[in-house]
């Protein structure tokens, strides 16, 4: 980053610049950068300071391909289920470009939307101890910290839940990586160098998100 920012500006810039990156160059991620990403995770807050997170670093090509296959298989099943019940068509009803719509449906139902994980130079498999109270929240904070550090390092990453959202897939994943029974696989973060810049995805305006004292009483007025 050659530009100069004060701390507040830098913080909001990193948050706003984060993207879900699914296409990577062949370049590897340096050990120095990987350690900075993991250090960011380590500094996350956790209930009772339990620090339940554990990380499995996967670089081996054969294992990465298996991660991609599990992720893609899970996504493909779920999106096919959404497609055959016409819920996906309803979700994309406002999209008028039929060719684009068809391509999206194909990408989702084939599972390719998540199988990219097999091409990420490094996958960080985030696991969490089950014998704590706040496992999903703690580990999610660690993951977001990693994503922000990835952005600061001008790398790219994607938070992928596809390989472990279904317990059947999570079991395969645990078998593949030898994760013991006392731990849950939360997500995988694929990290690499982005092939291209990505545009920001739309965000809902604050006036739709924030309420004043009571639910449904807008805190912010809608800008005209």
């Amino acid at each position, binding site marked *: 980053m050659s530009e100069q920012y004060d701390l507040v500006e830098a913080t909001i810039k990193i948050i706003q610049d984060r993207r879900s990156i699914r296409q990577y160059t062949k370049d590897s991620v340096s050990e120095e950068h990987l350690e900075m990403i993991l250090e960011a995770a380590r500094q996350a807050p956790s209930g009772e300071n339990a620090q339940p997170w554990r990380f499995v670093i996967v670089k081996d090509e054969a294992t990465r*391909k298996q991660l*991609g*296959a599990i992720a*893609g*298989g899970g996504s*493909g*099943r*779920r999106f*096919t*289920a*959404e497609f*055959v*019940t016409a819920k996906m068509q309803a979700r994309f009803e406002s999209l008028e470009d039929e060719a684009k719509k068809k391509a999206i449906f194909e990408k989702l139902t*084939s*599972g*390719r939307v998540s*199988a990219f994980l*097999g091409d990420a130079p490094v996958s960080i498999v985030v696991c969490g101890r089950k014998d704590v109270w706040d496992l999903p929240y703690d580990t999610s904070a660690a993951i977001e910290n990693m994503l922000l550090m990835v952005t600061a390092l001008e790398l790219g990453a994607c938070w992928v839940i596809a390989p472990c*959202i*279904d*317990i*059947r897939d999570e*079991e395969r994943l645990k078998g593949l990586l030898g994760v013991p029974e006392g731990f849950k696989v939360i997500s995988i973060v694929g990290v690499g160098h982005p092939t291209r810049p990505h545009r920001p995805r739309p965000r809902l305006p604050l006036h739709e998100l924030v309420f004043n004292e009571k639910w449904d009483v807008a805190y912010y007025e809608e800008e005209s």
Partner: protein
Amino acid sequence: MSDAGVSLDYVNSIVYDLEKAFWDERGKGARFRVTNVGRDYFLNKCLPRIESREVESIIETVEQVMREEGIVAGIAHEIDGRLLRLEVQGCLHGEVEQRLVAKGVEPFTCIPANLVVLAIEETLDRPVELAEIKVEDGTCRMVLALFESRPTFD
């Protein structure tokens, strides 16, 4: 502890509470965390009876076990390309789904469907996904997606 059977009302009220609690915690994602509920039962009661490697025959064996055990009155099935439609009648747990629907919760799991999915996956290694559960007139109608094999993305 008495070895007399417990009432179905008690069992279903507990199953309902558990499902509702899980829905409240996990929302639509709850569906994916209960896909192997019934596995022990499947391994003990169904798997030893499955001899065929034909989907139709596997489903019929699971149905037979569930009918013999008094869990369902019957399961009709139809395979239409990659779609598998199941119609479960007289299910012991039907009240659970009806209570969920009454609370505005779309039913997200079905033990008979899970057993069918487990049977196909465990014997043929073909992935199956439960896509939809509709409760109509005491009958659960389900749509499942059947896949030929596990993708490798090579």
